[in-house]
């Protein structure tokens, strides 16, 4: 019994390390170019396609584009047709960086219902958590999650 338990603990540690390793690998090797990367070294990133933004939002609209704000990251001007744009909306964007310090939109989508989507996703999470508590219990003696007797 102890041998099986030890094997299980070793398995848990190995899988946990593998998950951490995947995270580190992603951090080190991801090909995503951020606005910060571009602004830190504009000459090198001139013409680079930026697709990754951190919760990008339309901060303000000006004549030939808009100012894009991010939750964690710098603001940047995006040049594009402003028809239909609204401030405060989340956006999806694929844009080319120019060394002068602005982006030129290649593809653009306004994620109008993103806030609804986030809030609508909360009740199902709570429901599933409640159902898990209803049907399963943690047995501290054995260290296992088991079916409840009345499940």
């Amino acid at each position, binding site marked *: 019994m102890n041998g099986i338990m030890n094997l299980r603990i070793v398995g848990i540690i190995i899988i946990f390390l593998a998950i951490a390793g*995947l995270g580190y690998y992603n951090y080190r090797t*991801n090909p995503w170019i951020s606005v910060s990367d571009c602004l830190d070294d504009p000459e090198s990133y001139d013409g680079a396609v930026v*697709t990754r933004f951190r919760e990008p939002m339309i901060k303000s609209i000006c004549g030939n584009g808009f100012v894009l704000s991010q939750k964690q990251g710098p603001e940047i001007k995006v040049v594009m047709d402003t028809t239909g744009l609204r401030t405060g909306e989340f956006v*999806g964007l694929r844009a080319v960086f120019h060394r002068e310090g602005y982006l030129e939109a290649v593809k653009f989508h306004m994620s109008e219902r993103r806030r609804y*989507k986030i809030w609508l996703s909360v009740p199902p999470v709570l429901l599933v958590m409640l159902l898990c508590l209803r*049907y399963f219990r943690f047995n501290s003696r054995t260290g296992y*999650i*088991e079916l409840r007797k009345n499940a």
Partner: protein
Amino acid sequence: MPDLITHVAAAHLLRRPFELKSHDSATVPMRVLFYLGTILPDILTRPWYILFPATMEWTYPLHTPAGMILVCSLLALFMAPSIRMKAYLHLLGGGALHFLLDACQKHLSNNEFWFYPFSWRGFGFQLFWSGEVIPFIPYMILAVVLMEVFMAWYKRHQ
């Protein structure tokens, strides 16, 4: 991602008919694990990403099939041996359904890295924007209700 109501409703509609013929006492708890599997990729990544976007570079692998296989394996090791394999398969099945639905939505960047960590090539069918699903949520809920009505009718006439 589509919203999680859509994910859970799709999981319900797919998994519930298997209970028509099943007499296994664990079938309902396993369905709950199927639900859990279908929301796991999002609940492990999105809250962090929304609250602290900079963490995406670290947490994104949990929203890939490889990451899900590991997470489900980890959770399965916490399950009692008598239900471990079933629990694992249900968690994994739910995760697979999640990635299938996510692959249907449009992205401006490659977002579904099914072959991560072996490839950064994106995968997807580019059928709809994630926000376009929201008006259909009432219909998804209606479908779930109709499914339950049918299940009750079937059991009564069995």
